């Protein structure tokens, strides 16, 4: 009897749940996208990740801005001039640009915001990206205290002048980068770290923040004070924090979300099936997966050993059998597609030459090769790749390599302290230029993490940074990259990433694939306006 009563109640409860679930998603939201994990911050001065950058760029607009195809277009600045030596940029601030509280955006806001990034106490994790500006590095490192010596200055409310210490062909692109975005400095001073909360946030971008529910979603709504508000078609956007790939794809397939932006939100195991869908879009992305060699390890000091290890890895097999997302086998650190930079020749799969080099180095058939480990942070894909590389080295060179997995913080610690032999790594470019990849391996750079130092490499990069001749610059970078991946082999490029997004092309407009995966929301719209 009790069981029957309970069964009745259960049926009643389930039916009411069913009725409740039949409701449509909140109709006030025009567009919902999956942004990956919970943003750590949306403060342009301190954010480091791409997912945080997406929100920041929806809220703040820089001197220049991204178009849907990833090109830079005028933003708060409507024009600029460059001096003949490529060192001085003068930006003219657009008339009628204002913050979301109605106050005008001026050149002084940019000066104050960039100064904030460079202030040592701000502890900006990405201040380095402003080091192209004259004296910026010295100011950030506390070597000078007078900010007037730094090469960025508001000449008046509408004119902002920047002086670089070396020509940087991509500087205009950098002005659209997250760290260069302006912030409402009075809010920062008033509220401290809490200035990014919805109740305090004042912004100048196409959207403003309505709500921020931790680990849930960020609600953005159209900013009525945005200078170009007529081009913004969505009144309300929700950015959902989801970091499980299976959940993401379930939500997309059942129509709970309109767009999956983060490639990590695509389950690798389902890739082969998902690639058959009409709404999956795969395109080149400015990022590379590679292995680092710790050259301070005695047996990895010899370039012949590193070269042999590189030659015996069949990268094509890795992208075809493991990653399966249309990735390209990598022979260089820089990904293809950087305009004006033809990739140099790298190392192809050549086991015969690999064995010869290994024998020359003193390890015929792998005999006597010391115990070596591949370090990687715990992830299914990383593990599969490590196992594959391990088996390739066993087969081609006859060596036994062990695998060592660590959780994220520990793995970073081991890399920073050179407590590894060979480590899995990746790098995402900040701007479309070889420098964003190659500069990491200059002697002493924090991201070098290999112990590798090469005088010719350093001087080639220095020379490239000083030249304004684009052809000569490309040749210098090519020569440097050849040293890095072919002659000295400090790193072993494995594959170039692809961007993977899900959206229905028939419905969503204003979305274009591009190398930097920049997809500004202010240009997106529903093709059927009734949606």
């Amino acid at each position, binding site marked *: *009897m*009790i*069981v029957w009563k*309970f069964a009745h109640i259960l049926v009643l409860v*389930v039916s*009411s*749940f*069913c009725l*409740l*679930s039949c*409701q449509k998603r909140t109709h006030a939201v025009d567009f919902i996208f999956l942004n990956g994990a*919970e943003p*750590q*911050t949306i*403060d342009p001065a*301190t954010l*480091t990740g791409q997912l945080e950058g997406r929100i920041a760029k929806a809220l703040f607009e820089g001197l220049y801005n991204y178009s849907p195809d990833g090109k830079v277009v005028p933003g708060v600045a409507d024009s600029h001039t460059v001096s003949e030596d490529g060192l001085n940029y003068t930006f003219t601030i657009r008339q009628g640009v204002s913050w979301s509280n109605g106050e005008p955006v001026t050149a002084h806001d940019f000066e104050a915001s960039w100064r904030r990034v460079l202030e*040592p*106490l701000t*502890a*900006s*994790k*990405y*201040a*380095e990206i402003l080091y192209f500006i004259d004296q910026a590095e010295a100011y950030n*490192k*506390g070597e000078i205290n007078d900010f007037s010596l730094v090469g960025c200055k508001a000449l008046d409310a509408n004119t902002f002048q920047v002086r670089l210490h070396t020509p940087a062909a991509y500087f205009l692109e950098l002005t659209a980068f997250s760290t260069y975005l302006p912030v409402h400095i009075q809010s920062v001073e008033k509220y*401290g*770290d*809490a200035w*990014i*909360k919805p109740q305090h946030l004042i912004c100048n971008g196409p959207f403003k923040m309505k709500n921020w*529910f*931790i*680990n*849930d979603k960020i609600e953005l709504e159209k900013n009525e004070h945005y200078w170009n508000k007529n081009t913004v078609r969505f009144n309300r956007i929700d950015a*959902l*924090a*989801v*970091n*499980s790939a*299976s*959940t993401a794809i*379930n*939500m997309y*397939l*059942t129509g*709970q979300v309109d767009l999956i932006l983060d490639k990590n939100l695509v389950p690798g195991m389902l890739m082969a099936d998902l690639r058959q869908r009409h709404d999956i879009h795969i395109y080149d992305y400015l990022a590379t997966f590679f292995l680092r060699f710790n050259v301070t390890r005695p047996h990895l000091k010899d370039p012949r050993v590193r070269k042999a290890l590189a030659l015996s890895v069949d990268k094509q097999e890795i992208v075809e059998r493991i990653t399966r997302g249309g990735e390209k086998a990598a022979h260089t650190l820089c990904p293809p597609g950087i305009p004006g930079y033809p990739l140099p020749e790298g190392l192809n799969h050549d086991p015969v030459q690999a064995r010869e080099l290994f024998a020359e180095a003193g390890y015929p058939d792998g005999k006597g090769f010391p115990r070596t480990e591949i370090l990687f942070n715990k992830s299914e894909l990383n593990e599969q790749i490590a196992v594959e590389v391990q088996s390739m080295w066993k087969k081609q060179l006859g060596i036994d390599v062990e695998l060592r997995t660590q*959780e*994220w*913080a*520990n793995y*970073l*610690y*081991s890399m*920073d302290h050179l407590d590894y032999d060979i480590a899995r790594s*990746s790098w995402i470019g900040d701007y479309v230029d070889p420098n964003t990849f190659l500069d990491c391996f200059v002697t002493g750079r*924090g*991201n070098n*993490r290999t112990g590798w130092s090469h005088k010719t490499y350093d001087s080639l990069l220095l020379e490239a940074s000083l030249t304004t001749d684009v052809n000569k610059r490309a040749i210098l970078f090519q020569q440097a990259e050849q040293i890095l991946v072919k002659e000295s082999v400090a790193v072993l490029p494995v594959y170039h990433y692809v961007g993977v997004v899900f959206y229905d092309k028939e419905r969503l407009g204003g979305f274009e694939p591009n190398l930097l995966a920049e997809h500004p929301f202010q240009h997106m719209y529903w093709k059927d306006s009734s949606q």
Partner: protein
Amino acid sequence: MISFLIQRFLQSILVILLVVSGTFLLMRLAPGSPFATERKLPPKVEQTLLEKYDLDGNLGNQFLSYWGNLLKGQLGYSTKFEGRSVVEILKQALPKSLLLGFFSLVVALGLGILLGSYAAMNHQSWRDWIAMFLAFAGISLPVFVIAPLVVLLLGMQFRIFPVAGWGTLAHMFLPVLCLGGYYAAYCSRLMRASMLEVLDKSYIRTARSKGLRELYVIYKHAFKNAVLPLVSYSGPLAAHLFTGSMIVEEFFKIPGMGSFFVNGVLNRDVFLVGGSVIVYCTLLLAMNLFVDLLYVALDKRIKLW
């Protein structure tokens, strides 16, 4: 009773003190910086951040500073989520986990008691066999197996419930089913064994011989004693469910405590983990106390004070 409660309160304080201290020390001794990113931070920036959060200097000073703040009632700020205090994060996340945990507990205990009692009442019949088969299936299928199955069936195939998210009652159905259903299987096994033992007692035989109805015997005489082992189990179970399940919360995208705690450990987010541990410990101790009191209420022979 008052002295018992005071004694338990003091014991609880001591336990929390030890657990929180241990957590802090382990978190700080584990390799890896709370501010590490794939792009290496300049040492000066890292130092500034460590100073900002009072995590610089030697471990002893850090520990004292942490306890100083705790005594002032300050749980600190997340080192991962900028500008977010631990209290603020817990305030947003805990109610969601509590709600999910409460419904899951109701399902676990409700279904467990019913299924277990039903099996015991029909001992060695096909009904017992079916009930225990369900319980075995529940125990054998972990949440990470059940969750995709129910999502596939009820979320994607029939589209009855949303596959993930938070906000309406409907969003809770699948996670509660997975979490509650899983523990219901345990509870039913526990209830069945206990009920069988009680049903074998002489006072139950006496009650039956008096010609009382079977349901009356079960409800009036057997249930109170049979449910005692389940009551003991429900304390830690409640604490566990109330503080969120990482797998369920992650799978169904519920912005609760589960993922904050686990990711907090991975991110070396020392203050957030400390805050979560305090919440977990407090809930666990409170639930155990509640269970002890319930025990006394259910069985007058038990004396705690």
